[in-house]
C-alpha cells in the first residue's frame, strides 16, 4: 500500500461524518469509501479509524446498530444522528473558511 497521507484528527472526523451522511456503513466500508471518493489519495490509517468512530459515538454525533453486511455477516453499522447532521454542516462551513484562508496565505504576491 502507498504511504498514507497524515490526516489531522478533526479532519478524519469530518470525513467520517460526511461519508455517513450518504448512507449508514460499517468501519471497513467507511475506509473504502473515503479512499474511493478521494481517488485513492486519502488512505485512512486503520488504527486511527476505530478509536475515532468510538469517540464520535460516545459524543453522540453518530449512533450504531448491528446489522447484516453485504456478504451476510454481522457488522456494526454507524449512522448520523440529527445533532450529527447539524454538526457536519457547521464543520463543513468551518473547513471551507479555513482552507480559503490558507489559500490566501499560500498565494504568492498579495
Amino acid at each position: 500500500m502507498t504511504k498514507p497521507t497524515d490526516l489531522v484528527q478533526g479532519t478524519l472526523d469530518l470525513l467520517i461524518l460526511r461519508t455517513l451522511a450518504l448512507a449508514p456503513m460499517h468501519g471497513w466500508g467507511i475506509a473504502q469509501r473515503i479512499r474511493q471518493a478521494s481517488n485513492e489519495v486519502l488512505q485512512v490509517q486503520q488504527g486511527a479509524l476505530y478509536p475515532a468512530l468510538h469517540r464520535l459515538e460516545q459524543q453522540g454525533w453518530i449512533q450504531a446498530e448491528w446489522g447484516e453486511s453485504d456478504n451476510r455477516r454481522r457488522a456494526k453499522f454507524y449512522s448520523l444522528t440529527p445533532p450529527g447532521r447539524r454538526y457536519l454542516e457547521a464543520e463543513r462551513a468551518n473547513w471551507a473558511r479555513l482552507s480559503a484562508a490558507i489559500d490566501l496565505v499560500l498565494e504568492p504576491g498579495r
Partner: protein
Amino acid sequence: MTRRGAGGRWAYKLPLRLRSLWGKQRLDAELAAEIEFHLERQTEENAARGMAPREARQAALRALGGVEQIKEECRAMRRVGYLENLLQDLRYGIRSFGRNRGLTAVAVLTLALGIGANTAIFSVIHGVLLLPLPYPRPDRIVSPWQATPSSGDTRLGLSEAQLVRLRAGAAPSLAEVGGYLLQGATLAGGPGVEPERIAAAWVSAGVCEALATAPALGRCVRASDESGGEIAAVLADGLWRRRFGGDPGIVGRTVQIDGRPTLVVGVMPGGFALPEELAGGEPAQLYRSLPITAGKLNWGSYYLRPVARLRDGASPARALAEVLAVFAALRRENPGAAIDAPDYAVRVVPLRDDLVGDVRAALWVLLGAVAAVLLIACANVASLLLARAAERQREMAVRAALGAGAGRLVRQLLAESLLIALAGGAVGVGLAAAGLSVIARGGAGAVPRLGQVGLSLPVLFFTLAVCVFAAVLFGLVPAAQIAGLDLHRPLREDGRGTSAGRGRHRLQSILVVTEVAMASMLVIGAGLLLRSFAQLSRVDPGFAPHHLLAVQVNLPRRRYGENQRTTAFYRQLLERLRSLPGVQAAGAPSAPPLGGPSGDTRFQIEGGTPAGGGTAGRPAGGDAGRHVYTWLVTPGYFQAVGLTLVRGRPLLDADGPASPLVLVVNETLARAAWPGRDPLGKRLRLDLGPAKMGPWIAVAGVVRPVTIRGLDEAPQPEAFLPEAQGMAEDGFPATSMNLIVRTAGEPLALAAAVRRAVSAADPAVPVSHLRTGDELVAHAAARSRFNLALLALFAAVALAMAAAGIYAILANAVRLRSREIGIRKALGAGSREVLRLLVGQAMRLTLAGLALGLAAAAGLTRFQQSLLFGVRPTDPLTFAGVALLLCAVALAACGIPARRALAVDPVEALRSE
C-alpha cells in the same frame, strides 16, 4: 470539538454511558467482533489480490496495527472515568474489608456511635427548633408577657382589662389580640355514654384572628359571645368526629358542658392547637368563649395567656413601647390593681422564642457534645487506619508501579473511607432510631414539640452529609500518609521502624491528645450538670412528697352551684377517704404543689393606702397592688401535704361561712407585708375585680413556702383560703379541686380505693390526673434530668472512645518498641522502669490533652450557664474531679499494654528482626 448541540446529543450519550457502566462484557465482545469483521474483510481483499490465506491474514493484522492497543483506545473513549473508577474502588474496598473483618467492625461501630448520636440530636433540633410552626406567617405572632423576675421569672398573662384595652386597638402595632386559658371541661354524657372530662380552653375573641386560622366549619368566638348570656364554643376536629360523628349539623346545636348549655358555633380544622399546647401534651378539644363583661372586668388577675399578631411593618420593639404605654395608662386608672414590684417588666416575645427559648441553649450544647463525640470517633478510626498503613504501603507501591498516580491512590483510599463511613452511618441511623424512641418517652415534659421529632428526609440528608464529612476527616490523613511516601522503598525492604513509622506515631499522638481534650470538655459539661441536678434535688419543695397521692375531681356546676354544696361534698368525701385503711390524712387544694398556680391576684394590707376605686388620679400606695398566688383549700390539707407551719394554726373545720374570715400565708408574704412584725391577726383583702375589693381577712397561720412550678424558682408570696368561705376570684364555688391523700404505704396501692370513694360520694364526678407526690417532684425536674441524662451518656461514650484511643496508641508503641524494651531489660532494667516508660508516655499524652481540654472548657462552659443551678460554670471542684477521672482512665488503659510490655522476653526481642 465544539459543545454545540450538547442538549440533543444526550439522548444518544446517556444509553451509552449506562451500558458502559453495567454492560462492559457485552461491549467488549462487540468491540472484538467489530475488529474481527474488519480483519476478515481486509484478509479477503488481500486474498483476492493473490496472497496466500495465512499471509493475507498477517498482512491484514499488520495494516491494522496493534489490535489490543486499538481496543484499549476504543475502550478509553467510553467516557465513564470517575464514576467507573469509583465503583471499582468501592468493589475493591469491600473485598479488602472482608479480609480485615475485626478492624472493619471496630471502625464501623465507632463511627456508628458518633454518626448516630449526631443524627439523633439533629433530629431533635430539626423538629423543635427548625420546623416552622403550624400557623400562617408564624413569625408575626407575638405575646406580651409581664414578669417580676425576682419572683422567679414567672410569666404573668394579661388581665381582662388589659386584654380588652389592647384588643380595642390601643397598641396599633398589634393588629389582632386575643387571650386564652387552658382549663378542662366536663362533657355531659348521653344515653349509654359516660360524662367525660376533656381538655378544653377558654378563648377570647381575637385568638383565631391572631393565629390566622379560620374554623373549618362555622365561625370562631366573637366579642358578642363573651358578653352574651350563653356560652359559645368551637369544637376541635378530633372531638367533633369522635363524639358527634363528624356531623356538620352540630353547628347551631346546644350541648351540655360543665352542666351549662353551650352553643356550638364552629369546628376547627384538624391539627389545630393553641400556642401553649404546641409544647406537648393533650390538646384542647373544645374552645369556649371567655365570659367577660365590659362593665365588670377583672383588673387584678393576670391569667389570660396572650397571643397577638403584629401588623405588617411593625416590629416587636415598637409593639413593646405601645404596650408599655397602654399598661401605664391602665395603672393610672386603677392603681390598686396594678402589679407593683420593683422589677416589674413587660416583654413582647415572638412565638418561637416562647415555645423553645428555654430549651434552645440545652439543645445547642447537646449538638456541640455530639459533634465532639463524632470528632473523637473520627480520630479513633483515623488512628486505626494509620496502624494498618504499613501493610497497605506494599499494596499501594505495587499499584503505583503499575501506573497509578498519587491522586488515583488517594481517591482509592478515600473511597474506602467513604464505604466505612456509610456503613457506620447506616448502623448509626438504627441506633438513632432506638435512641429517639427513648427520648420520646423520657423527654416528654422536658422538650417541647417532641411530636415533630423523627427521622425525616432532611435528617437523613444530614446524616449523609455527616458520613461524607467524617470520611474525609478520618480518611484524608492516612491516605495522604500512605500515598505521600516514597512508594518504592517498601518494595525493597521491610518498612518497619522507618521514619515513616515515627511520623505515623507522631500523628497518632496528636490524635490522642485531641481526643483526650474533647473528652475532658464533655465530661466537664456533664459533671456541671450533674452537680446542678444534685443541688436541685436538695431543694426543699416545701412539702413531703413521699407517700402522697394526688388526684383531680371536677364537680358539675349545675348541681354544685353553691358554696354549701361543694363544701358539704368535700367534707363528706374527705371523711370517707380518711376512714380508708392506710390513709393517714386527706385534704383538697385547688391545685397541688408543683402543679402550677391556681389563682393570682392583688392584695392590700390593713393600714396601707386605701385602694382606688378605679378613679384616675389616685396615686398608687406603697403596698397597694401587691401580687399573691392563692389557693382554696379544705381543712386537713396542711397535714396531708406536709406543709411546715411556723406560726399560728392551720385552717380548720370551724372556719366556715359563718365564722370570721381567715387565711394562712407563707413566710415570703408575711415578711414582705409585715416586715419584722408578728403577722398573726393582721388583716388583708384581695382584689376580686375592678372596684371590688374583698372583705378583710385575718391571718391565722404562717407556713414555709411551697414550690409552685419548678424547683429552681425563688419563693413567691402565697395565701391559702378556706374553701368553705368561698373567696374564689370568679365568684364561683370551687368545683375543680385536687384530692391529696397521705398514705402509710405505697400510694398507688390506694388508687383504686380512692376512685371508689369518689364514685360512692357522687358517681357523676370524674376522677383524673392521678399522680404520686414523687411523680410531681420528678416532673418538675424533668428538664434538668433529661439534659443530664443525654449529656452524661455522650460524655461516657466520649470517655470510652478516648480510653480506646489511648489504649490503641500504647499497644502500638509497645509493638514498635518491643526491641527497645527487650534491650533495656537485657541491660538490667526492672519492671518498674519499663512501666515508667509506658505510663510516662500515657500520662504525657493525657496531661497534654487535659491541659487543652480544661482551658477550652473554662472558656466554653459559660454557654451552659442557663442550664446550671447553684453551680458556677468554672466550678473548681468539677474541673479537678474531671482531671483526676481522666488520669485514672488513662492509667486503666495502660493495663493490658503494660502487661504485654512486661512480658517481653529480652532474648526473643534481640533475636527477632
